[in-house]
Structure formats: C-alpha cells, structure tokens
C-alpha cells in the first residue's frame, strides 16, 4: 500500500502584502457547496515582513483523524484527501488542538471544525494566486510509475548521499526486466555490497571502468537473440563515464547500441580520495586541484559531456537531477521507450564529503545548481533540443557556490569567470533549442 498523495505546496513568504485572494476564492467555492469557511488562510504581520499562507498538508498519517472522538475525519484511500464529515462533527476542537501544521480551523460559535478538501482534486486557489505561489504537488504521477524497490535495506553509501536516492528512483521506475551495470565507484557499494551481502534484488554486473559499454553491448545482444526485451542500464560515476571509460562510451554511442547509460556526476573521484575528474568544475577544490595561496582549485572548465553525447546523434540525451522528480521521471520514460538506439542521461549528484556541505542539504544544493543555471535541465530527442525546466529568474552563481566548501576559496575574479562559463553554456543550449 503506497501512501503518497497529492498535496498543496505554498511558496514560502511570497504573498503580496494584504492579499487574501486564495481565501476569498475558497470561501466562495465552499459556499457553493453550502459550507461556511475556507481551507486556506493568508497571514500578514507587516512588522515582521511576514506575508504567507497556510493550509492542510493532507498528511499520510493524519493525527487529526486519530484524535477525533466521533470518527468524523477520514482519509480517502483513493485520492488521499483528509475530509471532515460535517454531519458527525461534534465541534469539540480536538483536531485543531492536535494538528501541528495549522490545518484545521475551529469555530466555537458554529461548533464546527473546517479544513481544506483540495476541491476534491483540483484546487481552485492554485488558479487564482496572483504570484503563482500555490501549486498542487502530484505525488501520484510519480508514484504511479513505481515498481517494487529493488534496493534492499542497509546499503552502504554515505548517509544522506543523493546517489542512493537517485539509483532507487531510477530502478523503481525501470521495474522488471532490468539489468544493471556498474563500475568501480561509490555506487558499487550498493550494487555489490561490501563483501557481506548483495544489496540489490535484480541482475547486475560489475565491469572494469573501461568495459561497461562493451559488456552491456554483449548482454543486450544476447537477450535480443533470445527474443527478450531486457533493459540494460548503466549507473556509473563521472570517472568511468567521462574519463576512464569515455572512449568505449563514445564507441557504443557511435554504434548506437540499444542501452541506457547513466552517469551520476559527482564531479570527481570521490571514493578514492576526492581527486579531480574531467567534470570537476572551474575553481572547484579537490585533493589534486587544491586551494592554497595562488592556487584556486581547478583551472579549467569541466567537460560538457551531455552535449558531447548529443553530438553523437543518438536517439536520446538528457540531464536530470533527483531534486526535480517529475522532470526526471519523464526523461526515464523517454529513455526506456527508445528501442532503436542509445539513451544517455547525465545526472548531477552532489557529494557530501567531497563538496563540503551538511547531510540534509543535498536537495538544497541540487536545486541551487538548477536555479542558477549551473546545471540546466534539458533534453535532446532525435535531433531536437529542449529545455525541460525553464528557470524564470536565474539566481547568481554565488547562490550555489556559497553552499559548498569546495568553492569557499573563490574570490570575485574566479566567481565572475565561473558565472561567465555558466552563462556561456546556458546560452549555447538555449541557442541549440532555437536552432533545432
């Protein structure tokens, strides 16, 4: 039983002062259903610069439901909406007393509790918010594609590493008939275990860094001869994909083998001691590109591997990050649909240890990389380039670099240079989307 459901997401503190359009709309919608109240509220504290809105989270395990003494609150099994049965509600206020998120209004004068019912699935507040601050997060659209989790408990990647989440996500979408390929690298720990037990529930094979694409080629062709449609998927680091194993990768692309090749790019050789790789960015610290005195990290820009892969004119190339799962999902589905050639997905995967940030910030780092256009999300599909996630107002690169110790030594000059590289690369992709 999956317990993922849609929920409203409200951007933090971005309401225009005085605005209450969402509440007005909700009140109107509720009135048309014969109810009195609003499931969303705006809050303004001008002195503190607070202008925000709040609503129910439609929790997967709602504490309001557990505390209701008349069984009036239910969570719908199909749409996940937490509803109050008005006819049964006693007006005791206990739900208001226990909900930690302010999801329930309690009105003593009417002796009733009131909460958001998500307009039964298509909330109207989303459409009226003048700053587009409210959105419906469609968890189901992702979860609906999930198969059983093939990663077993106790994987030995570093705590909080997004590579594990990413691999799990990829494999849950891939589902049955998937053959996973790896090479020496962090993810080896997940795939092979550390000499104790295997931590994956599907067939897998570990090659040398230089032989992944050729091994995949052989396995894929073998299955095809047997008449079986088996997805051959590689999940390797940038060391393998972009440095040591780059020639065979390019070869497989040129031969247009029907394999799905994914690189989780943590911009260096992380589990061998954080050495630089060809995707280490300009200015980035590694143990072999130190920051001491006049040395300011890596002197050259990173190799733009996804663009090089697109230049092979294989059917599908994309960049993706786990922080934008809808986008990622679409790309996986497209890659899986390709039956006449190769797909390549390049994934930015921050390394807690090697990049220098605190464990829970992985998503924040990933989002900043995208929102600054450091790592634009795009795809190349049979000759056409497309930006799949347009950043409305790209943030300056410092919003990204400030999060990471590997950039801590950069001064204005290097920051400007890095910004320049980011702009140049983004414009190139942008022009490609316009040209093709």
């Amino acid at each position, binding site marked *: 039983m999956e317990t993922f459901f849609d929920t409203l997401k409200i951007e*933090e503190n971005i309401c225009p002062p005085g605005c209450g359009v969402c509440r007005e709309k909700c009140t109107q919608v509720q009135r048309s259903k014969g109810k009195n109240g609003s499931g969303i509220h705006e*809050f*303004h*504290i001008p*002195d*503190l610069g*607070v202008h*925000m809105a*709040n609503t129910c989270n439609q929790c997967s*395990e709602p*504490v309001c439901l*557990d*505390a*209701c*003494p*008349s*069984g009036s609150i239910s969570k719908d099994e199909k749409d996940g909406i937490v509803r109050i049965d008005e*006819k*049964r509600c*006693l*007006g*005791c*206020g*206990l739900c*208001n*007393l*226990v*909900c*930690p*998120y*302010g*999801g*329930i*209004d*309690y*009105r*003593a*004068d009417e*002796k009733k509790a009131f909460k958001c019912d998500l307009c039964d699935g298509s909330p109207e507040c989303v459409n009226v918010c003048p700053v587009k601050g409210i959105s419906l997060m469609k968890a189901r659209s992702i979860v609906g594609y999930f198969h059983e989790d093939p990663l077993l408990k106790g994987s030995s990647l570093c705590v909080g590493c997004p590579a594990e989440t990413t691999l799990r996500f990829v494999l849950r979408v891939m589902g049955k008939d998937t053959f996973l390929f790896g090479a020496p690298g962090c993810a080896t720990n997940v795939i092979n275990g550390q000499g104790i037990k295997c931590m994956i529930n599907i067939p897998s094979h570990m090659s040398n860094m230089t032989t992944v694409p050729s091994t995949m080629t052989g396995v894929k062709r073998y299955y095809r001869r047997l008449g079986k449609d088996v997805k051959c998927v590689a999940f390797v680091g940038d060391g393998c994909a972009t440095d040591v194993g780059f020639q065979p990768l390019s070869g497989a692309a040129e031969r247009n083998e029907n394999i799905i090749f994914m690189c989780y790019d943590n911009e260096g050789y992380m589990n061998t001691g954080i050495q630089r790789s060809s995707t280490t960015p300009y200015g980035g610290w590694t143990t072999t590109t130190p920051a001491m005195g006049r040395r300011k990290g890596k002197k050259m820009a990173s190799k733009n591997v996804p663009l090089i892969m697109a230049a092979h004119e294989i059917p599908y190339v994309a960049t993706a990050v786990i922080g934008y799962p809808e986008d990622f999902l679409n790309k996986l589905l497209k890659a899986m649909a390709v039956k006449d050639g190769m797909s390549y997905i390049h994934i930015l995967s921050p390394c807690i240890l090697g990049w220098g940030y*605190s*464990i*829970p*910030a992985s*998503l*924040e780092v990933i989002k900043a990389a995208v929102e600054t256009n450091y790592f634009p999300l795009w795809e190349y599909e049979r000759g056409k380039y497309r930006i799949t996630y347009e950043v409305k107002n790209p943030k300056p690169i410092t919003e990204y670099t400030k999060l990471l110790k590997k950039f801590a030594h950069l001064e204005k000059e290097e920051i400007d240079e890095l910004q320049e590289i980011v702009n140049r690369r983004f414009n190139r992709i942008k022009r490609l989307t316009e040209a093709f």
Partner: protein
Amino acid sequence: MKRKKHILIGAGTAALCALKQIRRLNREDEIKLVSMEDSLPYSPTALPYIISGKVGVSDTFLVSEGFFKKLKVEFLKNRKVERIYGENKEIVYDKGIREGYDSLLIATGSEPVVPDIPGLYEGEFLTIRGIKDAQALIEKVKEGNSAIILGAGLIGMHIAQCLSEKNMKVKVVESLPSILPAYFDKEASEIIRGIMEGKGIECLTGKKATRIEWKGGKVEVNLSEGGSVEGDLLVVAVGVKPRTEIVDGSGIKIENGGIAVDDRMRTSMDDVYAAGDVASAKAFFTGENGLNPILPNAAEQGRVAGSNMVGVDTVYEGWIPMNTFSYFGHTAISVGMPFSSEKDEVHVRKINGTDTYRKLIFREDRLMGVTFIDTEVNAGVFNYLIRKKVPVGEYKMSLLEFPRETSLYLMQQAEKKETISLEE
C-alpha cells in the same frame, strides 16, 4: 518470519491507534481487539454531545464493521479480560477462557473516581464514562428540574453545560477555589465562570460535599462551609483513575495509580505494553512518569506502543498537558504548562470589552505554555512550538499580539529548518 499474535485490550482511542500502527507496519501478524462493551469502538469524549442531543450514539463510532474486515482484525465484543498471566503469555477472559499472545497491549482507559462521602451510596447517583452512563443520564433529564454536579473539572463543566442547554437548573460543587482548576489559572477560570454563571449555572467553589441525603426523589448535598443544595439528580465527576484491576496479582508494576511504562510503552512484564489513560508514562517537561488522561495522549501513546509491538523501535517523547473547552459559543484553550513557576517569563493580554484572554509562559527562549480564551488560533501549532523547543526569543510580543499568524510563521520556519539542518 513467524506470524505473531497481538492482543489489544480495550477498544478506545489508544487501542485503535496501536492497531492501525501495527497494520501500517505489518500486514501479516494476527491482531485481536477485545472490548468489554457491546458497541463498536467509541470515545468517552463524545458522551457529552450524546447527552446534549447533538449526535446519536451510532454517529460517534470511531470505525465501522468494515474497518476490521479490511484490516484483518478480529474484534471481540462483550468480552472482559479478567487476568493476565505474563509468565505464560496468557490472558483470561470472563468465564475462565484462556488465550495466548505474543504481545499484549493494555488500553483499558480510566474509570470515574467516586469519593467517600457519607450517604452517597444510599441513592442513585450518576457517573459518566460509557454509553450506558450517558443513556442513563438522558433518561433523567427533565426540563425545569435541577441537577447537582460534583466536580468542576472539564467533564463536570461540560455536563453542566449540556444539562443547562436542556433547560435544567445546574449547580456545580467544587472543593477547590476555582472551576477547571487543573487547566486554567484563577483569572482565566473567572472569565469562564462568568459566562457559565451568566447562563444560569451556579458554581459553588471552595466547598466540599460533606454528606448526601436522599429523600423523596430529591437529593440534598450538605456543604463544608455550612448550607446545602438540593436537586433532582446527582452527577459525580470529581476525576478519573486508571482502570487497572486486570493487572492485579500479575506482578505488573503500578505507580501513581497507573500501569508504569518506559519510554517504549513497555510495562514491567516482557511483551506487555500499556497506553492511554491507564498508563503512567513519561511527562515531556519533567521526564518523570505520571498520569495525563486526555485523548491526544492516548492516540500518541497508542501509536508508539503499536510500533514497538511489531519491533520498530520508537521512543515516546512524553506527554504535554493540553485541552480545549467550548462553552456557549466561547472557547478556552490550554496547551503546555498551565501555570508558571518563578523561572518563567509571563505575558498576559486582555482586550477590553471582550472575554479575550491570552497568557504565554516562556522559559528563556522557549515557549512552555499558552492559555487562550476567545482567541482564534491553530492550537496544535503551539504544541508544535513547545514540543520542538523552537526558539521564539524575538517573537514573544508578536506571539502575544498576533498569536495565530506568528505561531504559523514560526512553525513553517522550523519545518523548513528541520529539513535543511537536522545535523547540527
């Protein structure tokens, strides 16, 4: 893995929450829920609303028959558990039938305290704990008649309100100097009393019932300060105590009158857990065990017990006192410590010409307790701020002036921080 058998005694909020938690985490194990009553599970909290006629009994059942089928739970009604033999992992039902278990939850709730007042048992007084009690009281309700209620706690005052709404003359006798003494300070309680008395409910505080006399269908309660009150019916609501008789002789440790549990809801007997009103569990503020018989605690303790019963190690953070009381269109809310100590910083706000009253208790940077009368808030958010020890330093005044807005803002900020910097 071997299928385990969990038996849950009691069909109140604590047992149901444990049941749901067990099923969430384990689809295979056998679950049996035992209730000594013959109805579907309900909560005693709903009884006043049944008495006032707002809802019918069947509108307050917490779950339907279908619920048990869907979750593959056996629901045994009308069955009282008499004894527990922990060494043999067995329980004994009425009529001597025995049954084995792998893990056992005691969630038998509490029962009314009946004080030792001379003459009390010579007539038919009422207490309110089960559906039958509510029905018995409804039988006796008669417009124009008068009712005496012993005890001005939340249950007593709620019943007082119900009866007054039924146009009965109501007198409440309380030995302590104010009404709702456990949850509200003198000032707040005076405000509530003002409204109650305005509706004709007489509150005789600071007076003990010394003797009860029954004559000709009437009841007379003699008071400690001299004088007496007379009525047509008598409701005793001076408090509750854990219903622990089933552990008598079992060796399971009792403390504070309840079943002692550790922070996993485990009793002193292996594989026997307790939750809800019956348990003497860890208090959030002091870390010491104690009783706090309120519904939100029963729910939380049930969830924690359920997790641990299926081997998912879960720690109980401790209970926080909290309550909400609605009376004649007004609301009084208390979350956290109702009374301040010398170490605390207290801020009070009243609004002239209204019954609004706000009191916030801080200890250094932390919120310790709030009282709100006629103030629209999302009360649970204050519980969040207290429980998560959210630093509120610079927001103290804002919390007083704009309690709802500020608390939501602090909660949202804290939630965001929680996702970003768990580590530090």
